[in-house]
């Protein structure tokens, strides 16, 4: 990882009240616009979301007064909520664990020397740069019951006898969507780990070889521990991304049939825009937000950001 310099000068304190005020306000000139933009577009919606979760909103968007905690009561008495929550947990844990394990291998591969490595790295980048929505749509098409290439290949290989309507069955649909989620998450995770690998000095491996450590032992006792920070950061960012992932499910099953493949994100969206119940949807959003907040706190601890900036 590129190291950041610490050549930061401390302003020399000077006398004079006007000067002091000016020096206290000077930063605002530079960082003010950023604060305003974040306040208006990020913080305001947070406040608006919490406020909405306590209001009665008509389907046309009019505020019809306060509802107290009624939106939350409604939400928690939704028959599908527990299933959706559990499914979200499986979705996040499954996708992230698979992504991290696979990306360890992928990063090693991308770090190894072989002809054409540059092109392979570029190929791995493609799902990262491409719109996740469009990637999900091509997977949906490839999984098509009648004309999808996945069924064609599996039938021709004799794995299945006749085409399977993969996305119509909740469990199969869920597994395929997790597959797509892993597919689009792998590039980022692998490149973070690759960056971690490149910081390991070659002498470490030479020393291990001199000590007679085999390939396997070297990997588990030297490489992996040194990758810990990279792994940690990649996992947490991955957890947050996967938790928030909307386009995959929206494009492939829209959470259906019914709520059978919904995660909390698509569930929230459907309450707002299918059931026209913005208040209850906001309650779901607040619950989601609280969960992410916990993840962010974990991230802050892991990233030791304070040491970084000072």
């Amino acid at each position, binding site marked *: 990882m590129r190291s950041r310099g610490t050549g930061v000068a401390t302003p020399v304190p000077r006398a004079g009240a006007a000067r002091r005020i000016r020096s206290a306000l000077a930063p605002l000139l*530079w960082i003010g616009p*950023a604060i305003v*933009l*974040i306040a208006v577009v990020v913080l305001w919606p947070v406040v*608006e979301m919490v406020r909405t979760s306590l209001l009665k909103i008509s389907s046309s968007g009019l505020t019809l007064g306060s509802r107290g905690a009624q939106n939350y009561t409604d939400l928690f008495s939704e028959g599908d909520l527990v299933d959706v929550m559990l499914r979200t947990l499986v979705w996040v844990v499954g996708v992230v664990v698979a992504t991290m394990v696979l990306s360890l291998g992928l990063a090693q591969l991308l770090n190894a020397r072989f002809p054409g490595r540059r092109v392979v790295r570029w190929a791995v980048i493609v*799902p990262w*740069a491409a719109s996740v929505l*469009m990637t999900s749509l091509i997977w949906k098409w490839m999984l098509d019951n009648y004309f999808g290439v996945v069924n064609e290949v599996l039938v021709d290989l004799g794995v299945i006898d006749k085409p399977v309507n993969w996305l119509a069955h909740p469990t199969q649909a869920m597994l395929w969507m997790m597959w797509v989620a892993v597919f689009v998450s792998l590039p980022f995770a692998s490149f973070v780990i690759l960056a971690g690998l490149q910081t390991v000095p070659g002498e470490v491996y030479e020393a291990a070889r001199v000590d007679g450590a085999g390939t396997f032992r070297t990997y588990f006792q030297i490489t992996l521990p040194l990758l810990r920070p990279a792994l940690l950061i990649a996992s947490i960012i991955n957890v947050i991304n996967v938790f928030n992932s909307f386009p995959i499910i929206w494009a492939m099953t829209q959470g259906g049939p019914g709520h059978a493949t919904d995660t909390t994100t698509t569930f929230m969206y459907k309450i707002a825009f299918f059931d026209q119940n913005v208040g209850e949807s906001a309650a779901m959003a607040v619950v989601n937000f609280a969960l992410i907040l916990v993840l962010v706190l974990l991230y*802050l601890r892991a990233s030791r950001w304070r040491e970084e900036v000072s």
Partner: protein
Amino acid sequence: MTQQSATVARPVANRPAGARRGPVSVRKVILTGVGWLVGLFFVAPYLEMLVTALKPEHELMRSSYLPSKWNWSNFVDVWKAAPIWQNMKVSLIVAGAATLVTLLVALPAAYYTARNRFRGRNAFLLLILVTQMFAPTALVIGIYREMVSLNLTDTLLSLILVNAAFNLPFCVWILHGYFSSIPKELEEAAFLDGAGRVKALTRVTLPISLPGVVTAIVYTFIGAWNEYIVALTVTSSPNRQPLTVAIPSFVTQYQEHWQYLFATSLIAIVPVVILFIFIERYLIGGLTAGSVK
């Protein structure tokens, strides 16, 4: 597969020069084969996109790996089949304007926090870091309600603002990193040579941190170009929808133009993939906020 490639890859990568230099080792052949297969795996869905985009419409509803006739005219016809020019224009305006706003806001903030210590500096950097963790998805209901109360639903301005704000943290971080790594003395030298503060910034600091600036620009542009959920939520008129929202309407219960859907997808994907490849090696530092050392 993972473990295998891991154990295969390691010794080759760190082999000291001269050691074990056979003609062409079996290990290297296998490694190369696996590498290329993995590369193919990641582009395969996009190749299938291309194959589908080139099929004549009647062949879509027939099982065949490849089209009998490569219908390159699909890439021409798609512009007539739907007003995707308009949607592309929206995507371009939103992504372009969001990038401009982000850069104008991020540059001074990143520069100042890299060069000065002041009260609230840590609080500001914490705010940036926390914001980076919040995707618009988590806040979409709040964003929607805000845009309703500001009367900004179905406007490009709302999309520009949202994309600018959510990409700001990454830009601030990566630029902050670049500015911090440039010795202050370099700038002071220019300053002493009679250049003003602004001139020192534009003539000395900015050129050196150009990779960071380019990375920030490309990353924001692609992020805004690919943004989906907010655009889906706040826009309703077809002529104000970006490509991501417009594309799925090629396939509805009334029509199934998968070939056009994927032709348009490729038109949207190919340019950003090329842009992304240019900034690949600078990306990780900004994304992980320098926490991996």
